[in-house]
Structures are given as C-alpha cells and as structure tokens.
C-alpha cells in the first residue's frame, strides 16, 4: 500500500467568511483548488489536524445579545441605581460594546456588556462582578464577592437568578437545585474549566459527537484549552497552542 501526504498550512487571513459575521474568523472557507487534492482511482483520502494556534480573544461563551449570562441583585445601591434590582451582564465578543463599570450620578447602571474570552479566570470573573457592584455606589465599599479557601464563591446579600447554564457552572451554582437565588457561600467550587474547542468541517467524516445521540459526524478534531504566554508580560498575547 502506498500513500502520499500533503500538509496544508492554513491561516484565516487567507480565508473568506462562511456567511454570518464577516469579522468573525471562527467560521471560514479556504479555497484549496490550487492544491489539487484528489484521490486517484483505487485510493482513499484521509485527513487529520496536526496543530492549531488560536488567540485568547476567542469567546469562551457564545455571543448572546438577547439573553444575559448573569443576572443578580446587589443589596446596596446609590441613586439613581436601585438596591435589589436586577443587574444584567451580557457576554459578547465585541469589546467596544463593554459597559461602563463606573458609577454615574445621572445614569442608572444595571446593564453591562462584557467580553468573556479565554483570559477570564475565576478571579477575573469575580473581579468583574465586584466592579459592577461598585458601579452601583457613589463611594467605594468592601467587595461584595470573594473566593473562599476551598474555591467557593462567597459573600453576603447577593442573589443570582436566570443564569446562563455555562456561567452557572463557572460560578459553582447547581442549576438542578430548587434554590433559584442563593445569598451565601455556594455549595460547589468555582471553576474556569474550558471544554475543548471542537473543530468541525464540511468534509464527510465518520466521527461521532455526543450531542443529539451521536448524530454529529463532521468533527475533525478537538483542541484542549491550555493557554501559553507568548511574552513575559502576561498581557493579551497568550495563545492556545
């Protein structure tokens, strides 16, 4: 049996968008006509992903402008904000739409749009919640949320509800529980667990995904999330190799 291999080095800057958002490089089409990949009679084509490098700006939660990822209530607020009123955070990939995390004496601040990418860990998430709470107050107060020794989210007087399923798992909230709102330390620890990125294609593969009773068959590979820093500043230059 003889076989030839061709390696394809692909970069999304050379691709065209596969419909949808033209600025979203997560779904693209490559024109491979010049490569001449063709199986001659009696041969079979096989394919494999060798390696991939992805930026941390990849959204770790799907963009959703319609449904807030987090809805919670703060026990304190300074007018025009209202204590006990729902504060909504939407997770979206467009950084320019981020909410203003500062108090305003003239504008009620209870809706935020936040970038939720792979650089957000437990501390960053809790930091974001605390920033939102601080933005309800004219003078800074002690942070409402903290992370306990055993990694559980703690605090006093907060209440979550209508959580996005992914976000509830990150915060350690049991969505199976009948407690829709929790005001004290949570039962389970927070986690920044990121499920592997699934790479799907238009190729006819025989792979199996667990969704929909195993009917998905176009998965080329999965990429575990393990970020590596490409310089020493721990800035936004990390990559997922």
């Amino acid at each position, binding site marked *: 049996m003889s076989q030839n291999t061709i390696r394809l080095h692909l970069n999304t800057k050379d691709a065209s968008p596969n419909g949808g958002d033209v600025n979203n490089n997560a779904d693209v089409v490559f024109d491979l006509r010049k490569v001449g990949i063709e199986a001659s009679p009696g041969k079979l084509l096989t394919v494999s992903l060798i390696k991939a490098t992805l930026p*941390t700006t990849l959204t770790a939660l799907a963009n959703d402008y319609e449904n807030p990822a987090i809805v919670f209530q703060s026990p304190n607020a300074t007018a025009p904000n209202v204590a006990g009123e729902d504060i909504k955070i939407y997770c979206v990939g467009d950084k320019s739409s981020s909410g203003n*995390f500062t108090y305003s004496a003239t504008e009620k601040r209870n809706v935020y749009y936040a970038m939720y*990418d*792979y*650089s*957000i*860990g*437990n*501390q*960053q998430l*809790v*930091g974001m919640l*605390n*920033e939102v709470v*601080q933005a309800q107050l004219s003078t*800074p107060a002690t*942070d409402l949320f*903290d*992370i306990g*020794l*055993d*990694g*559980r989210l703690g605090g006093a007087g907060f209440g979550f509800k209508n959580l996005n399923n992914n976000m*509830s*798992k990150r915060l*350690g*909230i*049991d*969505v199976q529980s009948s407690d829709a709102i929790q005001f004290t330390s949570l*039962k*389970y*620890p*927070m*986690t*920044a*667990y*990121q*499920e*592997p990125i*699934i790479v799907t294609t238009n190729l006819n593969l*025989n*792979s*199996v*995904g*667990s*969704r929909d*009773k*195993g*009917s998905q*068959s176009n*998965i080329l590979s*999965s990429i*575990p*999330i*393990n*970020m590596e820093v490409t310089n020493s500043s*721990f*800035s*936004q230059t*990390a990559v997922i190799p």
Partner: protein
Amino acid sequence: MSVTRRVYLSSSDNQSVSTQNSVMDINLAAADLSSKPNEMMSVSLVRASIPDTITTPGLTTTRSRGVLNFDTRKPEDTLQILAFGLGQYIGDWSETQQTIYYVTFNDFDNVNLGAFPPNNLTNYNWTANTTLLDIITHINNFLGMDIFELVNGEDGEIRRISTIEGVTSLYVNFLADRSSDHILKAFGCKSGTDFPSAADMLTPVGYSSATATQVTTPFQYNLPSANMNVFLRTNLGFDSFISYDDGQNANILASIPLVQSNSVTGTHLQSSDLPTIGVSSQINYVNFALSGSHKPITQDRIANIEIELVDKRGVPMGLGVADWDCVLEFKFVTSLG
C-alpha cells in the same frame, strides 16, 4: 486492516443526572457504532479534559461511625476523614485524654455535618487546586486558633507538619484507627490497621509537655499522594485489572494522572481585592501511546456508553457542577481468518 472512528464526548450531553457529574452517560444510538460479522471492535482513550474542581481524595457519601459514637473501626472507602486528638496529658493515651476532632473531606451533601453539626467536626472540600496550607488554615480557623503549621526548613526540604513552634502547650495526636489511610499518608502520618497497642496508631506532633522538644510528623507530607490518578471505569466489556482490594477485574479504560495545565491567564481588573489563589487550571490529558493502548471489547454494537471517574479505590470522584470531556477512538479490525 482497520477503520477508526473518533468519538467526542461531553458530560454536558449526559442523558441522566449523576452525582457531581462523575458519570458520563451518553446515548450514541444515532452514531451506528457497530462492527460487521467479520470485525472486532477495540477502544482507546485519546484525550480527556477534566476541571480542577475534581475531588482528589474521593467523595464522602457515608456517615462516620466515630464522630458521635467513638467507634474506632476503620472508615469505609466512601468516607474521607482525618481524626486527631488535641491537648497534653499524662500517662497512656486514651480517647478521654484528649479532645478528639474530625475533618471530613468532600462531604458536599453534609452527610456528616447534618442539620445540627457536632462541634468537633468540620468539612473541607479538597480539589486538585488544594494545598496542604489551605487545609491547615481551614482547620486552624475551625479550632479558633493557630494550632498547626508546616515545618519546611529554610530550603523547604523538611516538609513536615507540627504544631506552632514555640507554643509548648500544643500537642496533637493524629489517630490512624479512625482516619482514612490515603489522607494520613498525604499528611505524612502513620497509617494502617495493625495496632498492637494504642500508641501504635498515634502520630504525635508538637510538645508532649512544657519542657519537651517539638515533634513533627515522621514522614514528609505529600498532598498529591492521596490520589495521583483518576480512573475511567466504563460499561465496555474488556479485560483490565486494578490492584485495589487484593486485585480485581474492572472495566478500566484508562488512568489519567492528575497533572494540571495552567490554562487561564490574563487581565486582572484593578478594583478587585481578591486573595491570591493561583491561576485557574484544568487537567488536559493526551494519550501519546494511543496505538498500543487499544483494548478489544466484547460488544459488537454500542448504543450507550457510560464512563465513570473513580479514584484508585474505585470511589467516585466529584466535579462539583463542572463538566468534563474526552475523546475515544474505536477501531474496527477485520479478521484475517
């Protein structure tokens, strides 16, 4: 000649609810994973990703006999517990000479604490991110004063547990008869079940009297040794063997070392005043010996697959509410006969 199919599984697609996501129960009826009459199937784990919330020493789902009843029988595997006596005494040790305290681990449902927690019992949730200092700090907080400290030496070479240096009133005995062995070993204490005399099951630390010298645990602490691997137990039929309990056959698909990848770095919002608990992480396992680890399986069709995360004793491990993922590879090998 063989054909391979890769199966990408996520616990978020579970068809049933399991305790802390420790079981992945996936319906694969639409995938047509079946072998032809002249084929055999084999399977191997390709990759797995597991969150850092995994309970390293296993879940506690059994109530302690000792906390309320002074029952000194060795704890069941489903009870992760550490017992120690606190206080100086004269003469031979007995359980009335010291105040006995218990620490359960990963008792998320408060099986032991219950609605009216005994005042000599506390619980701590021990995950892959837990350090011994975290546990010691929790116990000290529970006792209301600094009792324990880590003795590391200037170069960190000693790594033993004792009571606070210089406080000659502090004396502690770790109790092997009513503690879990894997936890005693992680703390550097004596363990086992053979105790010819009461003193044989004691691991003393601290100062036995005001004029005594400080005693540390006899062995170095090593928290990961409580459980260094997670085992994937499945409903697939194949031969594998695990040495626990004098050895037994079990459908162990693979073992995954609890080695963490630091997965999350990035921006830190300035107003946040949070304790330093380290960067977020998770366990990413890749099976680099894929071709050699394929196991023939007895089934000729797989419509449903169950995979359970257990520790080295077969005790379920919990993940809190987090999910986990894995990739399996099935081979369909044509018989040459």
